[in-house]
C-alpha cells in the first residue's frame, strides 16, 4: 500500500533536515579542530 501524504512529507523534510543537521555538526567539528569554537 502506498505511504500516505503525511508520511511522505515527513520522510522528505526529515531527509532534508537530516542533511542540514549533519552540515551544522560538520561545521562545528571543523571549527573546533581549528580552535575557532570551544
Amino acid at each position, binding site marked *: 500500500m*502506498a505511504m500516505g501524504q503525511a508520511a511522505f512529507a515527513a520522510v522528505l523534510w526529515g531527509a*532534508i533536515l537530516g542533511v*542540514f543537521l549533519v552540515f551544522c555538526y*560538520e561545521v562545528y567539528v*571543523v571549527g573546533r579542530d581549528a580552535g575557532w569554537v570551544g
Partner: protein
Amino acid sequence: MVATRLALGLTVAVLAGFTGVGLWYARGRIDTSEEFITARNSAREGRLTATLIASVMGVWILLAAPEAGASFGIAAVLGYAVGEAIPMVAYAKLGPRIRELIPEGHSMTEYAHARYGAAMYGFVVLVSGLYMFVFVAAELTGIARALSLVAGVPQWQTATLVGGFVLLYTGYGGLRASIFTDTIQALLVLPLLVAAAAGAVLALGGTGAVYGSVAAVDPALLDPAFAAGVQFGLALAFAITGAELLNQTWWQRIYAGTDGSTVARGFRTASVANGLVVFLAAIFGLVAVGYADVVTDITSAGYNADVALFLLLEAAFPAWVSLAVVLLALLLVMSSVDTLFNALASLVTADLPRLLAGPDDRTLRLGARALTLVVAVAAIYVSLRARSVLRLFFLADLLGAAVAVPLLAGLYSTRLTGAGALLSSLLGLGVGLTFFPDFRGLLSALPVVGGALPAADPLYLTSFAGAFLGSAGATLVAARLSSAEFDLATLSRDIRRLDEPPATDGGEVSD
C-alpha cells in the same frame, strides 16, 4: 537550457580554483612517498569526516541514485541509502582494528599479501582495482553526460577538463591535497544540496503537490512494500556494501586519521551523512516521475530514467537552478575523482618496495606520480569509449560482494588460511554469477555449466545476496575446518613504512 559558454566558464573556474587550492596546500608538505599516499595521523575529526563524505559522494548521486528511485520507488531509495551507510558502520569497527594490527600499513592489498599470500593478493588487486577504476570512469562519464544534458557541452571537453585539472593537484599533492580539497567540497556540497532540495520542494508546490503528482503517475513508487522495489533495494544494499568494503579509499583514510577513536567517530558520522545524502538524492528520481516524461522500461529504446533528475530540472525549473546543479555536480565529481586517482595509485605504490626490491624514496614518489598519470589518462579514455559503465559497475559490485567477507575476516580469525579465503571468495562469485543477468551470453557459452544455468534474476537480488552470503558462509566453514594458526602479530612486522627497511622473518628493525 544553460548557455554552453556559461557552463564551460563555470566549469573551468571551479576546476582551476580547487586545483590552485590543492597545489597551494600541498606545497612543501610532500617530501616522501609515505606522505603522498598515506598522510599518516594528519586528519582530525572534522577533516576526516568531511573527506569520508566527499570521497564517496560523486556525481553518481545525481544520476544512478535518482534512477533507482524513478524505476523502483521508495523501497529502492531506502535500500540505496542503507547500502551506503553499512560499509561506514563496518569501518567504524574495522578501522581501529586495522590500525592496531598493522600500525604502519597503507593498503588492503599489502594486508592481503601478508595475511593470505600471493594468490588472494592477486585476486584482491584485481577486484579492488577494477571497482575503483570503473567508479572513476563512471564519474567522468557522469559529469560529461550531465553537462551535455544541461548545457550542450561536448562530452570529451568535460571529461578531459575534469580529469586534467584533478590530475594536476593529485599528481602533485597526493592524499593531503585530496583530503584538504575534500573538506572544502563537503562544506559546500551539503548546504547546496539542502538548499536545492528544499527549494525544489517549495517550487513544486510543497510535499502535497509532489505526492499528488507522483501518485497520479505511478502509486507503486510510493509503496514501501512494492515487491520489485524491495528486491532491488536489498540487492543494492548487498552490492554496495560488498564493493565499498573493497574500496582502498577507506584504508588510506583509516591511516590518515589522528588516532583510532577519531577514525571510529568519523566513520560513524559519515554513515549517517552518506545514508541521508543518498536517500535525498534518490528520492528526487521518484519526484521526477511526477513531473517529467521518465521512461523506466529498461528494454525501451527511449529509456531515460538514468537522467531522471535532469529531466525534472528541464521540465520544472529555470536555467539558474540548472546552473546551481552544474556547480553541485562539479564539486561532487572533483571530490570523488581526486580520491580515486590517489587510491588507485596507492594500491600499487604500497607494493612497489616488494616488487622492485628496495627502491629509494625518490623512485617511489616518481612511481606514485606516474601511476596517477596512467590512471587519469586511462579513466578519461574509458569514459569517452564506454558504452555501458553501469553493467561494468554491477560486475565490479559482484566481485566485491564475493571477496569482502573472506578478506576482512582475516583481521579477526587466526584459523582462516589463504586457500580458505580464496576458495570462499570463488564459491561466492560462482553463486553470484549463476544468477547474474548481465553478460548472460558469455556465461551460457561456458562448457559443461553454461547449459545448466538457472534463470537469471533481473533484479540482481539472488546474485548479489548469493555472492555475499555464500562467501560469508563458506568463510565460516573454512575457518572452522582449518587447523592452521596464523599469528596476527606478524602483520605489523611484515608491513612497514615505505621509508623504513622491511623486517626479516622473526627479526627486529632497529630504530
